[in-house]
């Protein structure tokens, strides 16, 4: 079936919504830059691991168990940054309705939840040998738990939404969740001062060598997070392009077979 101006009668050979040249330059970026960055990140991670397990000085009271601190704290910081980006992307989506912002929000939420999970697992692993209990209502651990709950509910909303405007719903929830975070911190902080609990690491001043290792690990984790986000972003973008191509395909021949 042809329209009078000949549009939609030509088969769509290119990715819809994108210039052919732009897609290939994106492909180029992916093919070259991604593996290079991946290798660099792997090197950085190995170096950070070495620093954490070997180079860093042994802690006075807790011994070698304390080294999990270099895994626990950077994961938390990375998660917070990712959730902050999620908030920004959600606000951008609410104002500008750019699909790219929605993908960024989705991606950072997913990877952020993973890092949060790492914090929640390493916490008890650390707490058990040191204090003999699996869970302490430590401020960081508790806040991370609430944060984890909020963003898991965000992922549930994305999965369970039957609306055509899921990105809008998700962005609204993300804004509410992000605004909740200061309240989470304040309430748990005050609760903790009223009911003091064992503090996990970083209570007082920190040895500068330990700080150095901590920052290296944080850098490594951030690079790794960026890598995963980038990969997931591309995957999601491709998925959406496939869906759109599918829909556009059916524009040409709705029955998908010879009339």
């Amino acid at each position: 079936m042809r329209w009078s101006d000949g549009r939609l009668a030509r088969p769509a050979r290119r990715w819809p919504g994108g210039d052919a040249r732009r897609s290939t330059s994106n492909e180029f970026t992916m093919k070259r830059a991604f593996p290079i960055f991946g290798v660099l990140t792997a090197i950085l991670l190995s170096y950070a691991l070495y620093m954490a397990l070997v180079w860093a000085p042994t802690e006075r009271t807790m011994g070698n168990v304390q080294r999990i601190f270099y895994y626990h704290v950077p994961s938390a910081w990375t998660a917070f940054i990712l959730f902050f980006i999620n908030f920004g992307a959600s606000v951008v989506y609410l104002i500008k309705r750019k699909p790219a912002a929605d993908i960024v929000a989705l991606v950072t939420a997913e990877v952020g939840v993973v890092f949060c999970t790492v914090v929640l697992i390493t916490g008890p692993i650390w707490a058990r040998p040191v204090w003999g209990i699996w869970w302490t209502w430590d401020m960081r651990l508790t806040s991370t738990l609430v944060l984890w709950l909020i963003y898991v509910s965000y992922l549930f909303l994305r999965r369970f939404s039957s609306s055509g405007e899921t990105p809008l719903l998700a962005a609204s929830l993300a804004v509410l969740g992000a605004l909740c975070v200061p309240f989470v911190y304040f309430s748990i902080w005050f609760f903790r001062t009223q009911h003091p609990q064992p503090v996990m690491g970083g209570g007082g001043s920190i040895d500068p060598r330990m700080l150095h290792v901590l920052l290296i690990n944080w850098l490594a984790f951030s690079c790794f997070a960026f890598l995963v986000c980038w990969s997931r972003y591309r995957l999601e973008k491709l998925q959406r392009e496939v869906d759109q191509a599918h829909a556009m395909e059916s524009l040409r021949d709705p029955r998908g077979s010879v009339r």
Partner: protein
Amino acid sequence: MTETAPVVTVSNLIKQFGRFAALRGVSAEFSGGKLYAILGDNGAGKTTLLRTLAGLNQPSSGEVTILGASKFHDICQQVGYMAHPSLLYDEMSGMENLAYFARLYGITDGTRCAEVIRAVGLDPDLVRSVGQYSQGMRQRMSLARALLNNPEILLLDEPFSNVDLHSATEMVRLLAGARDRGTTIFVVTHQASLLEGAADEFVWMEFGKIVARTRWLADGCGGGAPPRRDGAEPRHHTSSGESTK
């Protein structure tokens, strides 16, 4: 009133749900003061098109212009909407329902509600709750609700479904009367024969596109008919007027 100025313009409307496109590039112009019957099989995109016109869902791409406005909210005071569900509260009487919806449109005098209920052939003093009405009465009350704000454009989605013949013909008579007074009416229906004689134009949809626009019901029977250019006057087919299905 001028018949050539289009009151509703739809331009390359695409509505995509995941991998499925309900509307696949609908472009058309509709002039004022006419009754358009939108016909087609299930899944043709009729309801999606009507709901897009009513501002209830956002198109994936394309534009809708109603009465010169591209945002529905600017002209919502001039639009009436009705669907197969009654859009009324089952637990309240007809008058109570209309009094509430009139409030939403900023109409505070109760005489308008009574007037519009009488216009659809129902009794304003009936205290029976709408949930206990017959389907025909309920749809007529729903039409009364749609007419409350004296709209310039009426959008009706399957208004005659499960409605008895008397109520249905009564409603068609009302719609024709409203059309004669200058209202532009869009009716999505499976019962095209009810609108024969009343409709100015039959718009045929198939697989998310408008495939034909005919003056008489017998002329377009789905599939095979060439698409119309935007705004073209529908051709009068020389038919003997017999309605065949």
